[in-house]
């Protein structure tokens, strides 16, 4: 119980673990979709405290990790243009492109700025009327409203020099893709709490029903994750396939309708390529015609070669739950957080980085 001392309520954590042990009678594989949950599971040593019947599979839940290589190359290409200021969330900077990362492009003189919020990028555009300001807008449903708002603000301010390079990924279509992949065998899912804070729970009912899987909307703190796991296991043992909400203190059934309105003012769903996984139907947001002037892909003629992925990186298999990070030959050798080969080694929410940082806690 060593790591439990860090919890905000170690007694309760212990009780959840004991309840999980009492409830489980057969082996189950449960996928946590959100990288924050992966981080919590690995960092707090929960994986090794779970009974051996319970296998946690780490899903594709890190937008940084699944942003297509080609888009990273495009961002780097834009950042190298003299009149462009490229703005990005910090996590994207070290993600390897086919030749370099944004961080290397920055070292070579590209004007690349790390921002906390896309709304700050709009201010930069206002202050630099002679430059083109491009925000690298990645994220899940949680981040999409902020990215959309930046477009709306720029539109209101009548800015002509602001655009976003958008790469959004959506959780429910990814869950469907994982279920439909013959190689991955997942019995139940922890859905991402903050995604549902925005979108609500309605999209999960048909998935749980059709595919006969329990889905529990879960928070990201250790106690949340433990409780979510317990709720999934109870359902599995009782042969149920319900959508339940572990994170009801934050997530409302209908989500945040104002946020949804802002998203769908600017974006529409479209097919989306996930790095390491491939194209998933209707799993991303593209910019609507009415805001096309704010779409960096349309605004700039970015012609670059299609580049292959590093063949050593098995991130796709990891994100589909087929392999664990330590099964990758490069894990901890050539591939480390300081010299990542694949994106899941970059972000602290990526499965490879989580395993690398806390690998002392995990049995290889």
């Amino acid at each position: 119980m060593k790591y439990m001392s860090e919890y905000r309520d170690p007694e309760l954590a212990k009780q959840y673990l004991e309840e999980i042990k009492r409830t489980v009678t057969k082996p189950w594989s449960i996928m946590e979709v959100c990288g924050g949950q992966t981080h919590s599971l690995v960092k707090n040593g929960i994986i090794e405290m779970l009974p051996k019947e319970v296998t946690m599979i780490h899903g594709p839940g890190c937008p940084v990790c699944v942003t297509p290589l080609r888009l990273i190359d495009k961002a780097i290409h834009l950042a190298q243009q003299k009149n462009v200021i490229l703005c990005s969330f910090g996590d994207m900077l070290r993600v390897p492109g086919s030749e370099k990362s944004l961080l290397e492009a920055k070292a070579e003189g590209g004007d690349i700025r790390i921002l906390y919020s896309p709304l700050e990028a709009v201010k930069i555009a206002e202050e630099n009327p002679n430059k083109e300001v491009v925000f690298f807008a990645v994220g899940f449903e949680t981040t999409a409203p902020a990215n959309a708002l930046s477009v709306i603000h720029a539109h209101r301010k009548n800015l002509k020099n602001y655009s976003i390079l958008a790469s959004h990924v959506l959780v429910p279509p990814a869950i469907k893709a994982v279920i439909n992949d013959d190689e991955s065998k997942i019995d139940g899912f922890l859905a991402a709490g903050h995604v549902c804070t925005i979108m609500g729970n309605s999209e999960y009912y048909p998935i749980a029903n059709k595919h006969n899987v329990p889905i529990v909307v879960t928070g990201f703190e250790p106690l949340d994750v433990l409780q979510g796991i317990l709720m999934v296991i109870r359902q599995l043992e009782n042969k149920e396939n319900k959508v339940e909400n572990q994170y009801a203190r934050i997530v409302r059934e209908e989500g945040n309708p104002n946020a949804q309105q802002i998203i769908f003012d600017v974006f529409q769903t479209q097919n989306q390529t996930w790095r390491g996984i491939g194209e998933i139907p209707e799993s991303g947001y593209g910019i609507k015609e009415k805001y096309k002037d704010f779409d960096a892909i349309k605004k700039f003629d970015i012609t670059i070669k299609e580049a292959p992925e590093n063949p050593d990186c098995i991130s796709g298999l990891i994100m589909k739950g087929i392999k664990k990070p330590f099964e990758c030959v490069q894990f901890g050798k050539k591939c480390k957080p300081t010299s990542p080969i694949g994106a899941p080694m970059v972000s602290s929410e990526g499965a490879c980085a989580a395993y690398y940082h806390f690998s002392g806690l995990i049995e290889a």
Partner: protein
Amino acid sequence: MCLAVPGKIKSIEHLYDGKVRMAKVSFGGIIKEASLEMLPDANIDDYVLVHVGVAISKVDEKEAQKTFKYLEEIGELGELEDVDNYLPKKE
């Protein structure tokens, strides 16, 4: 970048002819701007979860404090501070 951090609304400013509300939110003393466009009923002294500069949900004070403390303990509040925290650290 996927984190949502709870903070307390200290003041509210109206922009675009009053249509848009921007708040100054205190995260354990660090003040950041956050848009309240997704929470029309949030007011001064309310606690809100903020994700990349946008408040996405109201939370009660107790929950806000617990979550903030947890994020602090696990060292996940770097994104509120200097953006240099994102640059690679030596191992």
